[in-house]
């Protein structure tokens, strides 16, 4: 108290002396410079009392903020100007070896699947390899349908559960804790599939773990369940003038992109010690007939016909591409499944709805296909080659009576012709030649591709399918989805994600908004097979105009609220709330090729039926997703409040909520330290040169 009183008296005088000295220096013509960023011009500051010296300058460390006296002095210069600047020692020594130490050491993923619900625990191990205190900032991906509902910070043996708060309040709490020297962590959502983890006041040599847990539903694609864990965010392109996108910058170049969120990428030839381990336990409930992982080397064990354990091979631990495991379960005719869970909040269910088998027997109508290829810089090389191969296969699968068109876009859109082209041998030959001429360069003005494809003259005698082939590396997802909603008309959109680390949120949402479906073409997948599966799907009519008879169930708040069409091989997952205790049968009625069709699903509520503790989180996550979708199409000031309300009630991450955890039991010495963004590798197969902003 005495020290504070004295400083309160001294502060104005010291401030006056400080500024008057500064102005006097300026008036005397002194041309000294003052750093604006730590990364540009590191300084040292020393505290007389403790003799503590740390490189790096931060305005927050100035006198007045910490109520301690500091002596500013020019310090030793670092090896290179672009270093993030937390200090010396390890940082500088290892840069010579091209291994760049980063505050994130290891990511451990432990996942389990029960039925089609996945439970995933992600543990991020942060440490401080520098000589001064730091704040680590890590931008990382999660599945866009992940319902994140648990956040724990571990310091030594002490584990602190984070609290869900309104985002602004959580950020404020974190900032205050950081400024006052407490170890704190903050998790925010930048996009449904991009999150930022911040850990403040990591002392030199200390480790802090942050554990995140989420639930999500698995995709079922053409007979295979698919478990995906994304490991790196691909470099996004942001339209000129935007500031709320996701910037891609070279390591240590904060602020270069001008975007609110930036991902720092390692330069070619650089690496970090950050690695990843992953273990997945699958309990399919029915025998697993086969499984495959085309993205990583794995070790596997099947302890029972319906159980499978998969681990990432230690030799394949660089987090630079999505992990994708696919498995096929027994049974020629997969049946729809109803899962329920009750707690003190009421009843929750999910319904996985499979299309009826008789869709196979129905003939297809003439098709109009519009292929839209992303030819931007991020598609350069292998991704564009895969996209080209897929379109070539698609052209071969066209039948007489069909028509097609090819549109490409990077900074602008262009097309093969002005209208639909008949699927003649000559036109297809011209298209093949056109495809061979394509190269990947420039930005990703996807909105131009959307406009060109959806405003394209429509052939009313054919079913129109627009196929987008892209990696989805853009930062303006909301604008794209809004344009689709406005311009869709009679078109159906099928999105094809191309590459090792696709923006799955965008691809899934494009298909959802376009009343179509999504498919992914990874580096080791067959482009021809993906296109054949797509043709198989669109060659049979979908089950449309779905209506659900819930039987004896009193059902409310079902999401998605607008039931999508059922395509062959593509089930739909619904989630809702219910009241009632008796076993019943749910019946889904619709039309297929002009004929009534029906799917019946038993709902065993009284007897022992399938259930899962994660269903409330899954339901709340789907409600948040639906409200967020609505906000893209119709601006409503009440929607953010509604999203926030659901997220807070169910303890979930959202754009308007965040997890914060503070260790108030221990206050670290010194100032809040230097911020170090965690740099990550560009995804495998993506060219650094054409995608990352180098100043």
């Amino acid at each position, binding site marked *: 108290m005495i020290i504070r009183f004295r400083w309160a008296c001294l502060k104005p005088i010291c401030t*006056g002396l400080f500024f008057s000295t500064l102005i006097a220096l300026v008036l005397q013509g002194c041309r000294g410079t003052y750093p604006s960023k730590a990364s540009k011009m590191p300084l040292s500051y020393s505290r007389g009392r403790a003799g503590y010296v740390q490189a790096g300058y931060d305005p927050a460390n100035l006198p007045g903020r910490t109520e301690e006296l500091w002596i500013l002095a020019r310090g030793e210069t670092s090896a290179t100007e672009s270093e993030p600047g937390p200090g010396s020692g390890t940082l500088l020594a290892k840069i010579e070896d091209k291994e760049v130490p980063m505050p994130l050491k290891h990511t451990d993923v432990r996942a389990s699947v029960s039925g089609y619900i996945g439970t995933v625990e992600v543990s991020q191990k942060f440490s401080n390899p520098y000589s001064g205190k730091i704040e680590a900032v890590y931008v990382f991906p999660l599945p866009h349908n992940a319902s994140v509902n648990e956040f724990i910070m571990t310091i030594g043996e*002490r584990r602190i559960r984070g609290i869900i708060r309104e985002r602004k309040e959580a950020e404020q709490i974190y900032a205050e804790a950081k400024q006052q020297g407490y170890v704190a962590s903050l998790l925010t959502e930048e996009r449904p599939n991009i999150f930022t983890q911040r850990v403040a006041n990591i002392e030199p040599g200390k480790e802090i773990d942050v554990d995140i847990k989420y639930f999500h539903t698995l995709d079922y694609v053409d007979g295979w369940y698919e478990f995906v864990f994304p490991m790196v965010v691909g470099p996004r392109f942001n339209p000129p003038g935007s500031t709320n996108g996701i910037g891609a910058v070279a390591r240590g170049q904060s602020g270069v992109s001008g975007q609110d969120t930036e991902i720092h990428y390692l330069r070619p030839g650089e690496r970090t010690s950050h690695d990843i381990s992953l273990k997945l336990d699958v309990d399919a409930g029915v025998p697993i007939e086969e499984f495959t992982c085309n993205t990583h080397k794995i070790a596997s064990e099947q302890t029972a016909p319906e159980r499978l354990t998969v681990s990432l091979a230690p030799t394949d631990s660089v987090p630079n591409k999505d992990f994708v495991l696919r498995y096929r379960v027994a049974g020629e005719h997969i049946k729809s499944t109803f899962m329920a869970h009750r707690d003190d909040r009421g009843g929750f269910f999910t319904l996985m709805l499979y299309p009826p088998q008789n869709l196979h027997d129905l003939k297809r109508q003439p098709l109009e296909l519009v292929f839209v290829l992303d030819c931007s810089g991020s598609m350069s090389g292998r991704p564009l080659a895969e996209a080209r191969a897929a379109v070539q296969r698609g052209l071969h699968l066209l039948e007489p009576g069909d028509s097609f068109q090819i549109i490409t876009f990077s900074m602008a859109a262009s097309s093969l012709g002005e209208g639909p082209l008949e699927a003649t041998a000559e036109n297809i030959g011209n298209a093949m030649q056109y495809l061979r001429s394509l190269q990947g360069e420039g930005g990703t003005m996807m909105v131009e591709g959307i406009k060109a494809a959806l405003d394209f003259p429509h052939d009313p005698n054919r079913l129109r399918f627009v196929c987008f082939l892209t990696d989805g590396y853009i930062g303006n997802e909301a604008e794209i989805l809004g344009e689709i909603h406005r311009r869709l008309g009679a078109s159906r959109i099928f999105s094809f994600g191309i590459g090792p680390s696709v923006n799955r949120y965008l691809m899934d949402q494009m298909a959802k908004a376009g009343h179509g479906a999504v498919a992914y073409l990874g580096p080791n997948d067959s482009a021809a097979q993906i296109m054949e599966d797509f043709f198989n799907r669109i060659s049979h009519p979908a089950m449309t105009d779905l209506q659900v008879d819930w039987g004896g169930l009193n059902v409310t708040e079902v999401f998605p609220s607008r039931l999508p069409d059922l395509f062959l091989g593509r089930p739909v997952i619904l989630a809702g709330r219910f009241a009632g205790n008796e076993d019943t049968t749910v019946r889904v009625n619709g039309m297929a090729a002009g004929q009534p069709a029906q799917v019946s699903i038993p709902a065993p509520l009284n007897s022992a039926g399938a259930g899962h503790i994660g269903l409330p989180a899954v339901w709340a996550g789907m409600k948040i997703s639906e409200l967020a979708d609505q906000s893209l199409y119709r601006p409503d000031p009440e929607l953010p409040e509604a999203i926030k309300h659901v997220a807070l009630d169910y303890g979930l991450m959202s754009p308007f909520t965040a997890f914060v955890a503070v260790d108030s039991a221990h206050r670290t010495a010194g100032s809040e330290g230097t911020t170090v963004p965690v740099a990550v590798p560009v995804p495998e197969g993506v060219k650094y040169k054409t995608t990352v902003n180098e100043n």
Partner: protein
Amino acid sequence: MSSRSAPDREPSRFAAATTRRGARAGNPGTLAAEARVTPRGRVNAGLGWIGWRSLIVSFVLFLWPAAELLAQPPADEEGRTRFCAVDIFIDSGSTPLAAYQFRFAVTNGTARIVGIEGGEHAAFRQPPFYDPKAIQTDVAIVAAFSTAPSAELPAGKTRVATIHLRVTESSRRQFELKLQTAADARGNKFTCVATFEERKPQ
């Protein structure tokens, strides 16, 4: 009348306080009024480069510190925050504690819960779960259980959790703790005593 407003009772002090609050918030109305009293052109006419330098240095040396004195909040003014930890103890006597649920509330809105930590005994070291809806009003309904055998459960007084809080510096905090249930290894409820202690700030 006994219900007179503050300005009626002490008009001069109220006016002074209003001015200070306005200055802190950068009230543009006050600045505009001063500019009219001292026309800018007249000041410019009498000052050369040397005079401007003197004026700036004088301002920096005297006026700025004076403004700082007026603008800066007193050390203990309401609104300043710090962080503190409150330990929750349960005394189960001679019976090993296997499960508990308590309700910890900040009753006067002076603190926000910013983390919940596990206890000292291995059986309760994992951070307990809380009700996300209740915690938005800073009511922590916290529960935990252990399936360990009785011999591996804590008996007597043990710290089962720590509540981390952001508190307003000067105001008196009011907490309320209620043990809602406690059970032994067989699931039988029994009577325990729950207490809390605020750790001394570092």
